[in-house]
């Protein structure tokens, strides 16, 4: 079921959050709203749920206007950040709750609920109260409870943020598998870019009530359109460009405080434009003097992180983060060492936010 936000306007007091927001969520896909807190992603999700009504504009479910339809008649499944399991009911009763509201006969409801609990690996816990389960298990119950009513639309409100790192990774693949199996249109809200990249078919990066960029995870990561996206998704190094110099060897040459940089980006030069460079694409060069595309610097801070080593390098263009894979090929640099950074040619030019 395709979901459409049509000319949404919403303000809180004098502060306008959404101005003529339009957004289409494709049918059967996992669509992520990604952004910092206060960007409006949760408000959009709650509009889909029916908890907030926009000041003006329409919300369409499969072409049908549902703007005035109350929550309980929308047929959406929702998973909350704090699980929101009914504390006085057993796991099974929690999952049956929505089925009972739909007047499905008791034994049939129990059967479907048990099947769903089995799917999330918790059928053995059916008779326990929510308080007997761990956070990850509770969120799986919440998932089962939302999916068992076979909703047309599944809303996930930061479902993983209350969990620890290891569980988060485990649960996100389960959520994604369940979503693909059911082929259900899903809107996922998060501020965690890694989660967004890992799970989504499509990401809408939001800032201050606007969708800044819309695209697949790969597009958003490799071709950020503004410095905000570049910084928020994968925290790229942003190097200010002062002017464009004549091309050489098919590469554009750009002047920066750190010297001349090279890129094949097609984005035209304009004032305030920046070069976004991913830390893992920077390597150490073993030359005496910097050539074009190389930046000299001093190692300020070193962190060994197992699979990689991260460095903070002080350069004339500010501090640049470098992530060097720890495969043993590269010598570990030490604090205070003078180094030369080789920037990639395919780094992307981004507009100021």
């Amino acid at each position: 079921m395709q979901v459409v936000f049509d000319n949404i306007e919403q303000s809180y007091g004098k502060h306008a959050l959404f101005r003529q927001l339009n957004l289409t969520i494709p049918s059967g896909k996992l669509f992520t709203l990604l952004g910092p807190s206060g960007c409006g992603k949760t408000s959009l999700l709650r509009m889909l749920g029916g908890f907030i009504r926009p000041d003006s504009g329409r919300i369409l479910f499969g072409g049908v206007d549902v703007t005035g339809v109350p929550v309980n008649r929308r047929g959406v499944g929702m998973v909350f950040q704090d699980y929101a399991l009914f504390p006085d009911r057993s796991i099974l009763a929690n999952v049956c709750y929505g089925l009972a509201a739909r007047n499905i006969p008791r034994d049939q409801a129990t059967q479907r609920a048990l099947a769903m609990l089995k799917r999330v690996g918790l059928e053995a816990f059916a008779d326990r109260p929510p308080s007997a389960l761990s956070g990850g298990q509770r969120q799986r119950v919440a998932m089962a409870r939302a999916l068992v009513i076979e909703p047309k639309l599944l809303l996930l409100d930061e479902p993983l943020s209350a969990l620890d790192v290891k569980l988060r990774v485990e649960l996100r693949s389960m959520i994604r598998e369940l979503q693909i199996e059911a082929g259900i249109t899903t809107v996922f809200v998060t501020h965690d870019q890694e989660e967004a990249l890992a799970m989504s078919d499509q990401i809408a990066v939001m800032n201050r009530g606007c969708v800044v960029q819309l695209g697949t995870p790969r597009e958003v990561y490799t071709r950020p359109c503004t410095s905000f996206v570049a910084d928020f998704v994968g925290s790229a190094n942003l190097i200010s460009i002062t002017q464009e110099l004549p091309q050489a060897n098919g590469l554009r040459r750009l002047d920066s405080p750190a010297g001349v940089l090279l890129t094949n980006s097609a984005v035209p030069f304009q004032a305030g434009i920046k070069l976004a460079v991913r830390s893992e694409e920077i390597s150490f060069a073993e030359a005496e003097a910097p050539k074009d595309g190389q930046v000299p610097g001093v190692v300020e801070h070193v962190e060994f992180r197992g699979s990689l080593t991260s460095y903070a390098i002080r350069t004339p263009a500010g501090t640049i983060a470098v992530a060097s894979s720890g495969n043993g090929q590269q010598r570990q640099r030490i604090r205070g060492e003078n180094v030369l950074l080789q920037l990639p040619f395919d780094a992307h030019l981004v507009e100021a936010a």
Partner: protein
Amino acid sequence: MIAGKLRRDPAWMATAIVAICLMAIFLLWPLVSMLGKSFINPDGQWGLHGYVRFFSESSYREVFFNTLILGAAVTAGSLLIGGGLALVVARCKFPFAGMLMILPLITMVIPDVVVAASWVLVLGKQGLINGWLAPLGIELPSLYSWWGLVFVMTLNNYAYAFVAVLVGLKSMDRSLEEAALSLGRPLSRVLLGVTMPLLLPSVFTGALIVFTHVIGSFGVPAILGARTPVLAVKAYNEFVSEMGGNPQMQTTMASLLVYLGAGLLLLQKFVVERRQFQMESGRTPAAIPLRGGKAIAAAGSVLLIVALSLLPAVVVFVTAFTPSVGPVLQYGGFTLNHFHYALVRAPQPLYNSLFLSTIATATGVVFSIASAYLIVKRRSLITHVLDVLVTLPLTIAGTVLGIALINSFSSGPLALTGTWVIMALAYFLRRVPSGVRSATGPLHNLKDSIEEASMSLGVGTLGSFVRVVLPVIGPSVGAAAVLMWVTTLSELSATIVLYFGGMNTMPIEIFQQVDSGRLALACAYSVLLLITIFTPLALARRIFRLNVGTIE
């Protein structure tokens, strides 16, 4: 944003409007018209005549200052005893310390009149102690005096100070003291410089609760305070006096009590609560085990307080079985006559009390749950008004409420005076603040998402409330209902104004029997009242885990 979160919720919106209308008609209007009447001079003109006369005639002025002095003295005594006990119990370990935890419940629900009656039996002119001392030619100072009043009322009220200070101490974070100690301060300076300031708001809260209670209380001053008239009693006397019943003086005194109560509530809301510190809920400071003499002293004082608090119950129990000839009690004998009278010959007060309390509690619980839900979960200007209205009865002494109700509902379309409805209404209004408060606590802890989850699963607003919210707040509301029931059973100060022939309640009966010197009969009724109070309370302790924290 007048409607706020109610904008899309017609069902709750209607509930809010009904609740506000109820409070406006049955509380605000009587209160405002009573305050208004205090400004109408005998000649029918608006004026300050009543207040001028009140403060220029020494017999009235004295009443006002008596009230304040009594309030201050009892507050000081309660803080000393209650606060001290709380401090010792929270920070030290010693034998019998746990016994204190059940005390607040007991002292708060034993009716004033019963306590007053039992102390008359023990310390009165013809009392037990004077009986023992008489052969020695010694006589105790009269109980019907300042010291008797302060003594009995302190024993009646210290539990409020105890609970307030204890809650403050329990919410204290141990690491604050540890941090101060680690920075090189000696323990004594830490306690004075760090702990005391953090505790002060709780101490003030306790003091204000006690003070408000004392200036509004009727039973004890009416029985013991013949020589020290206070506002609540004087207003009542002015109300019942057939001859000199002056409506302006009556309403002036009632209004003065309202001003005092409102002033204290504002003080609490805007001065004390603002100073309340937000403390990280950490570990509470460890209790220090006491040994030797200190342990004996601590355990001894605890046992003494427990004994003094329980004494009334014991005394009335014994006396209820004691034969009496007129006012003279023959201790050592045994009779069931008094119970026979109270249960068989004149059981009406018991039925009346049970009937009124049940009605008031049933309506009170429904109203409190709905109001609390609106106040916590549907914030808007409307529910804010409701919040203020349901807090209002805290400022109104029972006698005052009675006078206000009877003035407003004696004629017109709502002529309730002389019916049981007005009595149940007074009980309902008096218990609404604590009822609402008991439901707001668990509602604050209930996450909005639980209700939203229910709605997203296909259940409507009211359905979600019934199926998801009610079960979660059920236990604390159940506990509150029991407390509401038992406290209305012992209501005296509003009842004394509102009751009419045939509608005697238990406290009224006890009060009248004490007044006419039939103490043994008063004790029999007291025992029955205590049984009807403590049975549900004991059950509630088991079922709802009712504890100190849920009271007031």
